[in-house]
């Protein structure tokens, strides 16, 4: 049971995540996203095998961004008159702005949480191959991404090594300007190395027949089973339920062309 979501086809999960995110883009109240976050948490942690700590840690930066939205909208949204909740010098926070800001912030978190639930419960290879076989992703793009994905953990190490090497040469920037220039000087070898690798990997791939593979077969079986459709349907039902609850509870606010909070 605890791997239920993890076993579902990743392309389906990603598609569902995209759909739900688009729905969320139209929502501007704070409560609905919160419910979605809870649902995503359940899907990822309880049913998907993702550790709660990792999930929360990954979302943390978004929480900071959400705070920013709260603040900016509270103060800078165009408010209804007599809505001021709070005043600090020339900055006035309005209730509607506050509500809107919290809504937008939480919405960002919800979209992120849903994506995490989809991606972190999936094996990357399976995700890409399923996208190629089931979602008509070009196989040349898909396998290129997989080959490049191998380098993600190395990028950080490589950059650290480069900066260390440059520090050993005596590049010890102090001012902001020299720090920026040192960062640039560190990024260039990183990209030079990455692009050279890209050329060599492409040659290695072509040397195994990649370029001329007109028809290809697949080692990984990526069937979209009934269970996957049931899963997709359940997600849609949960979404509908959350929205219905919002209507019933009166807290749901969809964007309706109004441009104010």
């Amino acid at each position, binding site marked *: 049971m605890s791997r239920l979501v993890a076993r579902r086809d990743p392309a389906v999960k990603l598609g569902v995540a995209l759909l739900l995110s688009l729905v969320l883009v139209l929502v501007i109240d704070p409560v609905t996203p919160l419910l979605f976050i809870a649902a995503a948490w359940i899907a990822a942690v309880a049913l998907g095998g993702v550790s709660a700590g990792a999930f929360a840690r990954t979302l943390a930066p978004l929480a900071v961004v959400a705070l920013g939205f709260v603040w900016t909208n509270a103060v800078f949204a165009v408010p209804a008159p007599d809505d001021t909740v709070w005043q600090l010098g020339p900055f006035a926070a309005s209730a509607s702005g506050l509500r809107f800001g919290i809504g937008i912030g939480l919405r960002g978190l919800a979209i992120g949480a849903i994506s995490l639930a989809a991606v972190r419960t999936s094996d*990357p*290879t399976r995700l890409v191959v399923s996208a190629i076989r089931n979602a008509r992703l070009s196989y040349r793009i898909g*396998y290129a991404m*997989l*080959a490049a*994905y*191998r380098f993600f*953990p*190395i990028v950080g190490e490589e950059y650290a*090594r*480069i900066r*260390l*090497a*440059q*520090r*050993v*040469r*005596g*590049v010890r920037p102090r001012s902001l300007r020299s720090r920026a220039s040192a960062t640039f*000087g560190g990024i260039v*070898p990183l990209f*030079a*190395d990455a692009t050279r*690798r890209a050329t*060599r*990997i*492409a*040659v*290695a*791939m*072509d*040397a*195994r*027949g*990649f*370029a*001329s*593979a007109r*028809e*290809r*077969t*697949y*080692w*990984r*079986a990526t069937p979209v089973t009934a269970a996957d459709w049931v899963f997709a349907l359940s997600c849609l039902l949960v979404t509908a339920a959350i929205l219905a609850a919002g209507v019933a509870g009166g807290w749901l606010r969809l964007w309706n062309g109004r441009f104010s909070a």
Partner: protein
Amino acid sequence: MTGAFAEIAGLTLRHVGRRAPALRDLSLRWERGERLLLLGPSGSGKSTLALLLDGVIPHAVEAHWESGTVTVDGTDTRAAGLASLSSTVGVVFQDPETQLVMLEIDDEIAFGLENHAVPRAAMAGRIAAARAETGLDGIDLPIARLSGGTKQRVALAAILALGPRGLVLDEPTANLDPAGTREVLAAVARLVGDRERSLLLIEHRLDDVLPFIDRVAALDAEGRLAFVGTPREAFVDEMARLEALGVWIPQLRRLAALLGSDALPRDAADAAELIAERWPAGATATVNTRTSGASVVRADAVGYRYPGAARAALDGVSLRVDRGELVAIVGANGAGKSTLGLALAGALEASSGSVRRDGRVAYVFQYPEHQFVSRTVTGELRVTLRARGLDADAIERAATDLLDRAGLRALGEANPFTLSHGQKRRLSVATALAADPDGLILDEPTFGQDERNAGVLLATLEDLRADGRAIVTITHDLALVADHATRVIGLDAGTVAFDGPPAELFANDELLARCSLRRPAIAEAFRLAHARRSEVPSLIGLAAVRTALR
């Protein structure tokens, strides 16, 4: 059916962006079922040849094909499609990181099969067979967690799964540590028995592969065929000529030559017989282990842990390096060699313990590109010279002098990244010397070098050592250790397993195993010879042999 598996006739090929051809008027036959060794100095076009044989040139990589033909298994490579060529000839390159494209072993092996539309039902069997052929059965880790040697075996398995009738191995052990090298060479040894497959090997660790080579071909620096013949013809009859080309010669053959013999020893046991027979009585070489006593860098119980790492990279390391010493640091990958070097140079702050330096210590990185901070070669030198506080005139004079000594005068205005590997290495050493250091730490200085360039570099290091500087090299190259190191430090999982003269390390089986090393061929030969005839000294390298026989 004639014997040729592949035939190159009158080929002249020029890479895009180069004025000089990579291969000139080359004609070479690779016989069916033969095991051919291809030698040549850096830049002689060996890898270009490998890419030609599997059709990557011209189908995936552009080049100016000026004349000649390449025929593989009866088909002209320009006419055939890359798909068919890639299942006829498979190439394994030296860097596992740029050959593997998937995240799991089975996916990697299946990749080629997928590209060739092999039906899925047939894949499982072929994957299992490929794993068995390379000794990978039972390994279930993701590729990211494999060692370098295992990754190379995966690359090999991926190629073998396609069932190529020709296999090209382009320096497959060049990027590996000794343990990885052994892994891969053992896998190759398993393959050579199959005479259905033709094998082309580009290697410089010749002592290990000589037993299974049928024929040798050598290219010169301009990409011309300089020699083709049997191993005996290559390393005995034409040894001097090949040496002049800058090509690696098997160590044991050099040993035989020094003993005045025409023999081509197949392995250490062969060589031991030779030594036992011919060693002049009383000839020996004493190893000078006196140091000047003036310490340049000292470490006391140094520990280091990378942020977020599970275990410490260094643990309680104490050592000292004096002026006039050339200390080699050896050990398996991950044992902490580079970390120790960085700590000694002061690039990393030790988490515990202390490092004391009496004088300047410069560090030369394994990958020179990481250290380049300027847009021109001369600029690189100027950066370091300026940091020394010299005035403008002195800087220019010193820069010119360093460029001359490194043989880079003509490339003063070039972008450092565009230099060849050997040139980049010389530049990075020059920039380190520009700081006029008292101690120099080099990480894998002979990595990727041919015999001539490596020799030049080592001679430079010897000069610096004789000049009173302290030299530390982190290396996998045990021949370097045997011939040049006054002392060797063996690391095992962050601790010092051995600190003393190389001869002592090479005599001790247990220590060698702890540091994941194997006795180099010469040392092994002398050990066996000494067992047969006790007056034969236990020498460890050719330098000692030369001294002893003088």
